[in-house]
């Protein structure tokens, strides 16, 4: 089981801030493929990976990063703090 967190318009498109999922995905990219296949709202949220960022256990990561041992995956648009 893995925790998925969504922020900003990713959260709004998917319609929830977090969920727990069972996944056999080896990488973030594989996890994204699984999510896209689920429902239209996921397909929309993950339509353009270049406009998304991902964090694994609260550290920024790439989409080809492995998921082994990861407990928390967060998806969000580029950050706009400051």
């Amino acid at each position, binding site marked *: 089981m893995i925790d998925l*967190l969504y*922020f*900003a*318009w990713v*959260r709004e498109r998917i319609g929830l801030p977090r969920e727990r999922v069972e996944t056999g995905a080896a990488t973030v990219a594989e996890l994204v493929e699984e999510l896209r296949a689920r429902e239209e709202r996921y397909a929309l949220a993950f339509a353009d990976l270049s406009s998304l960022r991902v*964090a694994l256990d*609260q*550290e*920024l990561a790439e989409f080809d990063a492995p998921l082994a041992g990861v407990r928390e995956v*967060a998806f*969000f*648009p*580029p*950050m*706009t*703090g*400051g």
Partner: protein
Amino acid sequence: MRVLVQAAPFDFGAEAQAFADGAAGAGAIVTFTGLVRDLSGALTAMEIEHYPGMTERAIAAIAEEARQRWHLIDALAIHRHGRLRPAEPIMMVATAAVHRAEAFAAAEFLMDYLKSRAPFWKKEVTAQGADWVAARDADEAALGRW
């Protein structure tokens, strides 16, 4: 080094003064404050979402790197989340060093990294609706200079 991520407003002047008072041995203090801008004149609020836990970690890591690169005497970062009104302070950073070049460089570094590497997202609310603020290419490009 203090990092505060909070919904509550903060008092910029009082924080700046307290920071300067506490920076024993410093010759130079730089502060930066970002305020909610209302460029259209129609903004009713700025909503700031963040990623609790990661936010504090990301800012602490950025501040620690700044401290090591420039031998800072001290550094401070405060960032709000939640609903803010136009002209309210969103965040501030402060740096203390022996010489001014280090204090300025470290403050700019902190700001560049906070903008693009700390998990905050801004949404502008007007009577017509709400829009997520898009990241600026210039902000991402600014990281290249460090």
